[in-house]
């Protein structure tokens, strides 16, 4: 608890008051007289501007600025102590294992704490399935490798299916779920929020921030981000609504040290998407977007792509589904084949395929036959795209099951 309080305190470093910094009385009074109260106010002016404003000599200004900077600067630590701290305080040195062996090995243990992990792919590829499985894994007791905590699931497209989640649980961890009342306890740890407008979404995020510290929330899932926030318009306008959400979610992840998983949609590559710099001669370069059929790009734009720390691309090509580690500072670019079954997502091979070229970032979505799974309960919103392979979708509801086979 003390650790998280420390981080909250650090959040307001920028707002540290000059009057409380222990500067010599004379200069502190001059700052106050000119309405410069916080570190942010003082450091937003250059030294010459301060000299003009405060009417003092350069030497005094330099000394004051360097004292203010030293006090407002966050403390340093060596990379070694950072590692030791994480290994000591956090589950698996700050990772949530996905139980997909190959992926966990690539990610040095699992989904990392404290940063945003993005799942991007075409509709129906399995992003929500992945999120459901992760939610379950986070709520499991630590004796079974879980984080033993609450999960906040922000569902903006009404895709959350608790029945499907229980089904994944029953099939993946039968020994837990067969115990009386366990299913209820696990499901009781997952809190689902379903905002329907961008304003509600922003309010949701504020509420989450407030409750993160008080309750043992161990995972935040936002499925999906793109539904309520627009990131890129044609021409990349400088101020887009995503900016605030991006920094907010990033700082939430950072100060609470929990994994944050966000799903993102795709859109088709338009002629305006830039791929080249001015020094590149566009004639000679292989225009790789056109070599893949129905090439797609991630929504939400370039600033969002910079803000996420891990980007997992899910795509399907020639009847095979792939999950690719497209952006990760700790993994080589590697792809795994996967399938969706009753127990959620599973990898077909734990050895990934290393991809050294730009195709690691490409998203291929061979959009195929439209199939509407209309089960008798409120899962009618599940629309899946299939072709050329059979899928058995089983929903077990209490004592009767509903089986759908499509081919």
């Amino acid at each position, binding site marked *: 608890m003390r650790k998280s309080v420390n981080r909250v305190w650090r959040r307001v470093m920028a707002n540290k008051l000059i009057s409380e910094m222990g500067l010599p009385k004379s200069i502190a009074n001059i700052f106050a007289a000119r309405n410069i109260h916080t570190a942010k106010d003082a450091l937003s002016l250059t030294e010459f501007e301060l000299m003009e404003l405060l009417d003092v000599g350069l030497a005094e200004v330099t000394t004051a600025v360097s004292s203010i900077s030293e006090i407002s600067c966050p403390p340093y630590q060596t990379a070694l102590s950072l590692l030791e701290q994480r290994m000591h305080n956090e589950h698996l040195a700050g990772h949530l294992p996905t139980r997909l062996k190959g992926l966990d090995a690539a990610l040095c243990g699992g989904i990392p704490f404290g940063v945003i992990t993005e799942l991007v792919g075409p509709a129906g590829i399995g992003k929500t399935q992945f999120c459901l499985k992760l939610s379950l894994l986070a709520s499991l007791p630590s004796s079974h490798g879980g984080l033993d905590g609450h999960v906040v699931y922000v569902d903006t497209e009404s895709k959350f299916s608790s029945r499907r989640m229980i089904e994944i649980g029953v099939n993946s961890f039968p020994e837990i779920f067969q115990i009386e009342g366990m299913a209820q306890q696990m499901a009781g740890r997952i809190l689902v929020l379903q905002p329907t407008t961008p304003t509600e979404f922003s309010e949701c995020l504020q509420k989450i921030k407030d409750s993160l510290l008080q309750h043992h929330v161990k995972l935040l899932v936002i499925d999906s981000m793109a539904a309520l926030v627009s990131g890129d318009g044609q021409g990349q306008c400088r101020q887009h609504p995503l900016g605030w959400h*991006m920094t907010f979610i*990033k700082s939430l992840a950072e100060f609470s040290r929990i994994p944050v998983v966000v799903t993102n949609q795709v859109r088709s590559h338009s002629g305006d998407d830039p791929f080249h710099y001015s020094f590149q001669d566009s004639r000679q370069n292989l225009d790789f977007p056109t070599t893949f059929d129905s090439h797609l790009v991630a929504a939400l734009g*370039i600033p969002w792509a910079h803000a996420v720390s891990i980007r997992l691309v899910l795509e399907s090509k020639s009847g095979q589904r792939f999950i690719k580690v497209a952006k990760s*500072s700790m993994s080589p670019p590697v792809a795994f084949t996967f399938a969706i079954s009753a127990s959620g997502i599973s990898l077909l091979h734990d050895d990934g395929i290393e991809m050294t070229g730009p195709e690691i970032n490409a998203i291929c979505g061979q959009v195929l036959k439209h199939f509407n799974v209309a089960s008798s309960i409120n899962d009618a919103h599940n629309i899946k795209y299939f072709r050329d392979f059979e899928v058995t979708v089983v929903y077990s509801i209490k004592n009767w099951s509903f089986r759908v086979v499509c081919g």
Partner: protein
Amino acid sequence: MEVSSLPISASHRAKLISAGYISISSLSSISPAHLARDLGISENEATGILKVASQRGGPERTIPSHHSIVDGAQTAWDMLHEEESCRRITTSCADLDDILGGGISCKEVTEIGGVPGIGKTQLGIQLAINVQIPLEYGGLAGKAVYIDTEGSFMVERVQQVAEACIKDMQEYDSFLRKDLPARQVNLQANDFLANIYYFRICSYTEQIAVINYLEKFISEHKDIKVVIVDSITFHFRQDFDDMALRTRLLGGMALKLMKLAKKFTLAVILLNQVTTKYSGGSFQLTLALGDSWSHACTNRIILYWNGNGRYAHIDKSPSIRSASAPYAVTGRGIRNLASNCKRVKLILRARLAHDEHICRSLI
């Protein structure tokens, strides 16, 4: 020289001018008491003003090197000596080192930008490790400061890169010194981690504060040879309505970093993000933070995708010609795109270059 250019407070300046002291030479032979009376200020303040004035224009200022025509200047010949003896930090990729003239220069600010996922943080981590390579392996035996504004510093990855670096040094040892008894590399990955000073920055105020504080920090930790800021852009990209303020703050930061690089002979590496701009009828990629920022850094390297691989392009440098080289991001860090056996050659090359230079300077 004019009094108006002296770094003194505005009211003192105004008083000087209204009392008739317009040039600095007019202050050269006046006593503090006399000045205090003329301006109506205390004698202490007058002494202060005269001290500043004498530092600016005095002819009796001690000149560090031999006699120069303009005070404080260095001759190009002296600078040539300095430039040649300037160490460079290897990037572990021989092709990249080649186009950089041996590696990242240790007295300048280098900006490295690219699309997300191209390997900027990877390169930053590689350099933070490579600066620590001991002198006998052609390295600088220095320490690193890593300023993380985005939370992209993953310790597990740093461990991986450190371990791979140690293995490389071992291989180099056995390759080069095969007729001598085997020498153990007495380093562990954790030793490398202990020499990286990590700052986590959460707002632009903290970013400015840490850059201001670095001067004091580095004078207390003299063996720091590289400062990496990952990324310089993040906190300046959103929240800024006042673009003029942003430009001023960025300019101030760039100047301070340049001063740091020169004063302590260290490499400053700034990682930048990309944005799009409309030019020549189409949208193109360009580094973020605007046109005025693009003038601020001495060197600029752009990492980009070309065909099937990652390339680095030297976009701007006063001393190196513009060129591109391929590189790869592997489990061991940044390496050559070509086969692995070049790994040993690159360390060997660095060592030979160093030896060659020592021979040259003895002549």
